């Protein structure tokens, strides 16, 4: 049983990590917490459903296409909800993101209806490991997510575009002075954030089924993951996500299943009391 909990906890956790990573990318880029990130998960899942169940494309192709579509959504979101307010107070931008979140939810309901939907898995069936029965999809989720994270790491650290995005995130003015078109770079960051989160939606949907309001709790857990892992840290987001997933699984089994979300926040508070900046936390850079 523990092995089962471990694997399902890790697969949930790594998806929380993907969402959290998306939030961190945006946070490092423009300095605000994106409260519509959970909706990226939901929308990405629905796109995948459209490609896979309505257009009957194979699941892997659907995941890719859904990811690309989310990239477009990310740019549209940036252009409409962030850019016009970029010089306003952070509060204004956060409220704008919340508004976008509502728009996403209702938009999804108008487009795809209220009936929960599902789609094909990447790998069907279950595998027996010892006494535990594990769904292949959980393993697929872990593998695919890990691959995505590695790809993102390579993109950000080793490629020119990644350096450009990091430079813009660290210092917009200086970046523009070296010839980087800031709006393009920020748009790219939002697109990347939406893409990786959206794929998570497509991976989870066959197990949990989609409805238009599932973004809310997912976003809340991702936020907890970021705080646990350390604000602004990408590895922190991933580790934080895994911790949240495992606390949810094991805490739910051994302590209480109704209060899983509460447990997560109790752990969050405990970690903050011991180490306020989170596990990998760093001081937010002062912008000169």
């Amino acid at each position, binding site marked *: 049983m523990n092995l089962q909990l471990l694997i399902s906890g890790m697969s*949930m956790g790594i998806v929380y990590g993907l969402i959290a990573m998306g939030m961190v990318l945006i946070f490092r880029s423009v300095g605000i917490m994106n409260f519509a990130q959970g909706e990226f998960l939901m929308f990405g899942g629905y796109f995948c459903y459209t490609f896979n169940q*309505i257009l009957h494309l194979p699941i892997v192709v659907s995941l890719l296409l859904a990811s690309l579509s989310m990239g477009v959504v990310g740019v549209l979101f940036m252009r409409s909800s962030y850019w016009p307010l970029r010089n306003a107070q952070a509060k204004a931008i956060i409220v704008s993101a919340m508004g976008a979140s509502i728009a996403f939810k*209702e938009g999804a309901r108008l487009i795809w209806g209220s*009936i929960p939907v599902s789609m094909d898995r990447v790998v069907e069936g279950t595998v027996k490991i010892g006494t535990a029965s594990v769904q292949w999809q959980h393993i697929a989720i872990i593998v695919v997510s890990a691959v995505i994270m590695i790809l993102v790491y390579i993109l950000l650290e080793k490629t020119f575009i990644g350096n450009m995005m990091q430079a813009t995130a660290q210092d917009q003015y200086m970046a523009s002075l070296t010839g980087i078109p800031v709006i393009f770079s920020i748009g790219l960051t939002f697109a990347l954030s939406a893409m990786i989160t959206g794929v998570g939606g497509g991976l989870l949907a066959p*197990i949990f089924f989609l*409805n238009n309001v*599932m973004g809310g*709790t997912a976003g809340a857990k991702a936020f907890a993951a970021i705080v646990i892992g350390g604000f602004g840290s990408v590895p922190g987001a991933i580790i934080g996500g895994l911790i949240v997933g495992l606390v949810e699984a094991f805490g739910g*089994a051994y302590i209480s299943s109704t209060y899983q979300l509460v447990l997560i926040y109790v752990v969050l508070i405990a970690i903050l009391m011991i180490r306020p900046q989170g596990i990998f936390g760093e001081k937010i850079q002062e912008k000169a």
Partner: protein
Amino acid sequence: MKKAVALLLAVFLAVGLVGCGSGKEEAKETAAKTEAAKETQAKETEGDKEADGESEVSGDPIKIGLTTVLTGDRALEGQYASNAVKIIEEEINSAGGVLGRPIEVVIEDALGTDVGAVNAYRKLAADDDIVAIIGPDSSNDGMAQAPSALEFSILTTAQGSSPTLRDMCNNDNKWLFQLRACDETLCKALIKYAVEDLGLKSFAILHDTETSSSDQARLFTEALADYGIEPMVTVPFTTGTKDFSSQIAQVQNSGAEAIIGAAFQTEAAILVTQIRSMGIEAPILGSNAFADPVTIQLAGDATDDVYCASAWVPNTPNEKGNAFAKKYQELYGEECGKAAAQIYDHISIICEAIERAGTTDRAAVRDAMNTIDSYPGAITTYDCRTNGDCGRGGLLVRVKDQKAEIIAEITSEKVIE
């Protein structure tokens, strides 16, 4: 630039609408129809005649209010309801309407909360044209509306099935009617079958913390107590839970040989899928939602050999019910759950009461309800001589090959006071 973005977004949404319909002719029609249905019904349409009003009916429409969950985790209920409204409205209006006038159902979003239900109710009740109001599926939210029913003195039909609601209808509130077999009946019937026919002896109960499901869990426990059996473990979870590994783990540890579930469709589907994928072969006994077409569609073959005591399933032996199910399938391309049939019946009965009263006076209509003693509905036969437990029937089903097979009909004798 902003205009361009707005245009892009509009194009985007339009593509989404089309994209979701392409490749499936029925689905396209469905999307368009449900869209149109939602558009017309989600608005308060004062004096707005239905497009398909026949020439036989004339005059101002008789308005019936409906509070249902249109948004949120349980929005499936609202979707079923809206679709059913379209069917019954068309049926009644094309057959001459009520008192020669067409009917019009005004829908408000109950939001899935008790506060939402009350607000939706009061908005409708304040409209003098509204003759009667239908409450949401949740007993809890329906009971929250009860004081308002008294205050506005308007006939209110509750969809919920809790025994507390039944007692409230019978004792405290003459305006409130429960048009459904009480859960007590259904839960007892399911347990009876499980213990006597299937020979099961130990059970674990998994239930949603939402009131109806919690009530059902309690009723299951009481029914088991009649046989001297205590559940090995009772595991609650919140609506919207996506991963049940921990809950199922607790059930496994308890050593129960059968699992009882009380949940809504999505959670039921995930539960059943995860239980089976973990290799657990214990029989599953479920509340209504476990045999709902949506649950079966989501969980697929995992629903094989799930037993359920349901108010209604599409292949019910009830003729009217069957006809309704077929019509729904034709119009919307998919099967419907009991929530749709409920709305169909509620509206039919209210119209019957109005006909019998001969007037749209709220008090007269309410009194007319008590004269209905065997009205054939899509779900069951209704006896409204006392306010509570007016629908006495249900179905014991087993899901096989993704269809709900009828094992037996459930009835209870009504106690006339």
